[in-house]
């Protein structure tokens, strides 16, 4: 996927990103007073999910077709921990994240044995296996899912039943998740991941144990996807099969592709766009699957850089025409 990722000069990307971060955080704090909070919370969950996925696709060059297992799996683990074991939300979320990381370790262990297209097919097959497990396991509640998950009290102080408290709790987690992704990407570890994306054989010949790095990136991505899923379970107070189904794995790919593979901000915009579109279509007669499929086809054919990637490319071109 290397050819789709634009490499903007450090300054352009940084300048845009600093402005975006400032605007984004301000908007995030103000939004619940203007928009239905649960809608924004949903967007944040999916944006974090897409950023976690992008850590793998955009920065390591691995296309996972099974990320729903980590997202939906964590939702189940958290819902179960909070509802049945009576854990407080912070421990519940940690349970979900740990579960997703473990799942990522197992699936990643098998998947990294093959590359490229096979990697995608293996992750899809193993996540489908997890889906069938969730259909049959007793703790997931089968077709009904886990309903009526209590939100609880964060650290025993903040009552998450309150919609605004919950909103800021989700926003804090979202920003924390994004910071972790940003930190990973801009660390020496992240640079090695990028070198694997650009040229795996060369990374091996330089002495890096590529398999270990891939597995580590896979587990981190799974854990962060798990964080998104765990929070979603608390926001909506249920966990169902929808979140572990293969369609969800497709959705997160679409969000990332549409926003811009390998850009920090891209998946956030992509997720926002897809969630808003689904919201719009939910009230219309037009089926979401068809819209999703069409956007996929258009993106792949003529829009491979995605929204943010195109903006970067445009800014780069403009800079090229008018040298400073």
């Amino acid at each position: 996927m290397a050819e789709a990722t634009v490499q903007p000069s450090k300054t352009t990307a940084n300048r845009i990103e600093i402005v975006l971060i400032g605007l984004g955080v301000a908007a995030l704090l103000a939004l619940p007073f203007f928009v239905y909070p649960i809608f924004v919370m949903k967007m944040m969950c999916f944006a974090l999910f897409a950023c976690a996925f992008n850590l793998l696709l955009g920065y390591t060059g691995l296309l996972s077709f099974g990320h729903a297992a980590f997202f939906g799996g964590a939702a189940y683990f958290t819902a179960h921990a909070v509802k049945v074991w009576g854990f407080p939300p912070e421990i519940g979320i940690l349970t979900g994240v740990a579960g997703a990381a473990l799942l990522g370790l197992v699936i990643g262990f098998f998947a990294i044995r093959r590359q490229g297209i096979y990697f995608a097919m293996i992750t899809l097959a193993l996540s489908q296996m997890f889906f069938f497990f969730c259909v049959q396991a007793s703790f997931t509640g089968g077709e009904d899912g886990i309903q009526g998950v209590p939100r609880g009290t964060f650290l025993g102080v903040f009552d998450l039943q309150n919609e605004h408290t919950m909103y800021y709790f989700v926003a804090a987690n979202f920003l924390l998740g994004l910071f972790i992704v940003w930190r990973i990407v801009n660390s020496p570890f992240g640079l090695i991941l990028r070198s694997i994306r650009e040229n795996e054989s060369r990374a091996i010949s330089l002495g890096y144990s590529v398999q270990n790095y891939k597995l580590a990136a896979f587990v981190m991505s799974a854990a962060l996807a798990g964080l998104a899923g765990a929070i979603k379970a608390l926001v909506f107070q249920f966990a169902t099969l929808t979140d572990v189904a293969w369609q969800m794995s497709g959705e997160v790919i679409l969000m990332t592709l549409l926003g811009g593979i390998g850009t920090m901000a891209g998946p956030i915009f992509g997720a926002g766009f897809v969630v808003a579109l689904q919201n719009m279509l939910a009230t219309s007669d037009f089926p979401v699957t068809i819209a999703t499929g069409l956007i996929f086809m258009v993106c792949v054919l003529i829009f491979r850089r995605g929204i943010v990637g195109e903006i970067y490319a445009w800014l780069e071109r403009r800079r090229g025409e008018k040298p400073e």
Partner: protein
Amino acid sequence: MIFGIPIQAFAGQLLVGLINGSFYAMLSLGLAIIFGLLRVINFAHGAQYMLGAFIGYLILAKLGIGYWPALILVPIAVGLFGIIVERLALSRLYEVDPLYGLLFTFGLALVLEGVFRYIYGVSGNPYPVPPALAGGVNLGFMFLPIYRGWIVVASLIVCLGAWLLVEKTKFGSYLRAATENPKLVQAFGVNVPMLLTLTYGLGAGLAGLAGIMAAPVYQVSPLMGSNMIIIVFAVVVVGGMGSILGAILTGYMLGLAEGLTKVFYPEASSIVIFVIMAIVLLIRPAGLFGKDA
């Protein structure tokens, strides 16, 4: 009695396994042919299989065209659809990462499934068994519905035919040569872009043929393709896509393994193929018949 299981139940599940295996074999064969030349994993393969079943169902319901003509017409129709898709879209993606081909065909699969779901809902539509193949025979140890026996025989013929086409004909030799080195084959004056188009059409047509053959066994439903494609992907990972014969054999073997699991441990029957895939990945990461790691 075999291992405490009545022989009728045993043979019955094995037959179901063999039938499923026939479809896995036909579909993974088409995937392998397409992948071999185009380097595209055709995610829409399941949707094209579903399309085949639906076209068969619709021409019977609207035009009264029955099973036997449909066996010819449906693969042609789905093959033409494939040719259009290849010309308009896939041919533009050969220069970029193969993963984009996977993503494009994934989108196509969503659209096809979505359209049929929108029009016909998710419930299955029955397709009658053709009169010539109705009924069954008593084999003494089990009752064999004739249509199911026909599926096994017909799928073997289709697989053998496809294998002969690729290994023994002039078209096949061009195809294999272009798989090895497309530029050289082009330099010898073979129209490689045309060959790519025909190959995708052939693969899609095979999926359509499998679809119309499946119509009387399973219900004709918009969801039949996506349920199938993920299993077929696992089959392809187990077999490795390097060899056509390997894809066929793996298809039948995994179908039988699934049938056997239904006899001894039904709870695991939906995941046994994925478990086998995981084991094969541990022991032989390139797949049972694969050469490419």
